[in-house]
């Protein structure tokens, strides 16, 4: 008698590698050969994982078409057996995989569309946090503003694109013809966030993106203002910095719990 552990090892190998040794443990049924019956599980394994990727990356699917998308997914499924108990995270590494796997990696917009779809899915069910309000901030003594250290809420992602992947994604979402590919001369910045329970995104200019990244890194507000002066010019720098901050707070992008660095 085959012990349970060996039987499960063999069964799993049949699904992952097409190994047929488990067939010696399985009888034919009254109506069907054992190969066909095991095949139900083997087919379901690939089909189910493909379905997860189709659900998570619908517009990349639409952009590539069935044949190329399934080709891409099948390589991913073969090289990334699922370690997650929750199907929700099976496609977590898919954007990086698309960006790194030839020939798909040669079309930068593919990985960027995937990254956008992943970010939109992520913010959808990210943790709920209280956002900082302007009233809270105005209660802060003026001398503490320079040392203000802010953190974003969890349901937000900054993406840097080399193409107009965001426009292509939007056209596919709207079921219109996607625009021609544009390779940007300078990196385009996209902020993906949750609004009214759904994932949304908007562009950021270079200065706002720089300030956002430094803020995420824990750089105090006073230093952020100095950096803006360096990058975008002294004139109106404080107003610009305050404008970005006000916009983020009004959009609920900043977490309620902030710190003030006394040494700044």
């Amino acid at each position, binding site marked *: 008698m085959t012990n349970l552990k060996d039987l499960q090892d063999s069964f799993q190998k049949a699904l992952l590698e097409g190994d047929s040794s488990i067939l010696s443990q399985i009888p034919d049924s009254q*109506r069907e050969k054992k190969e066909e019956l095991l095949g139900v599980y083997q087919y379901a394994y690939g089909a189910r994982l493909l379905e997860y990727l189709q659900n998570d990356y619908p517009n990349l699917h639409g952009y590539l078409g069935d044949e190329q998308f399934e080709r891409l997914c099948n390589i991913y499924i073969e090289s990334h057996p699922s370690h997650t108990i929750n199907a929700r995270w099976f496609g977590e590494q898919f954007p990086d995989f698309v960006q790194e796997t030839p020939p798909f990696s040669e079309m930068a917009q593919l990985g960027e569309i995937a990254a956008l779809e992943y970010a939109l899915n992520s913010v959808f069910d990210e943790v709920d946090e209280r956002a900082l309000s302007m009233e809270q901030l105005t209660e802060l003594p003026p001398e503490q503003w320079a040392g203000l250290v802010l953190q974003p809420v969890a349901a937000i992602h900054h993406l840097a694109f080399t193409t107009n992947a965001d426009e292509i994604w939007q056209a596919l979402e709207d079921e219109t013809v996607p625009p021609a590919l544009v390779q940007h001369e300078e990196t385009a910045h996209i902020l993906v966030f949750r609004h009214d329970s759904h994932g949304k995104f908007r562009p950021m200019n270079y200065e706002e993106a720089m300030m956002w990244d430094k803020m995420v890194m824990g750089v105090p507000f006073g230093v952020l203002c100095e950096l803006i002066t360096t990058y975008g010019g002294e004139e109106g720098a404080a107003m610009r910095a305050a404008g970005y901050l006000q916009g983020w707070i009004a959009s609920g992008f900043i977490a309620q719990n902030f710190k003030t660095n006394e040494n700044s």
Partner: protein
Amino acid sequence: MTNPASKPSPQKPSPLGFGLGLRPPHYPEILGGDPPIDWFEILSENYMVPGGQPMRILDEINEKYPLVMHGVSMSIGSTAPLDMDYLRDLKKLAQRVKPKWISDHICWTGVHGLNMHDLLPLPMTQEALDHLVERIKQVQDFLGQRIALENASTYVTFKDDEMTEWDFINEMAEQADCLLLLDINNIYVSAFNHGFDPHTYIDTINPERVVQFHLAGHQNNGTHIVDTHDHPIIKDVWDLYGRAIKRFGPVSTMIERDDNIPPLGELLEELEMARKIADQQGIQFPLFEKQDAPHMSPKTETLS
């Protein structure tokens, strides 16, 4: 085998009536109206996420309806160690939802840290039974409550099988002191695939352990049936349900559609059919305790 009647009856949760599997396309109608649904079963993994809309809606529905939690990832029959991270998350969700019970499947889903995302078959052997019983006890100790386990549809059997599925399940439930969720469709599917009589299955399972029925559709491929849960329920499965509810009495019954999700109205028609069959069998459900559930109309509370 243990005689099911030889041990004292376990304390079973009260029956809830007629419910549905909670699916996102139906959220607006459920929250915006008052459909005649007595309770919902949630897929635990769908709500084992950090937050956002799924958790907000879950809380809203939980205020209106009794809920039970149904998982697919416990892998209770696997020879891999129990996934304690998963069980911790499950317990955390249960503390939030306070479900009437928690269920999963009699199956395994992977070994060596991998997940096949499928309900894989166990051999009906003493070794598998002993292994399963030990693991169920561990899970129940950890969760602090009995769990219900569901019979999965299977497509293969094993040459080393030593007992029937119904004897295996009765023994499992008795030895582990767990509850049972009987999927009537899965009994039909496995009976067709393996050539046994589904009536024998229904007639042999210990009624004292059964807290819930699933009803679903499938895809018949001629030589075998695939449990797709994406079709309407067929007449043979309805007939089997009639036999089951007659034997098991008022057991919480629900329609489980996992794919090809139809409009809510279509599932309500199936639910009405289940009510009608229970009624024809003379089965009455006791009044449910939750007084603040607005959907609990007298019509659905008591079947006469």
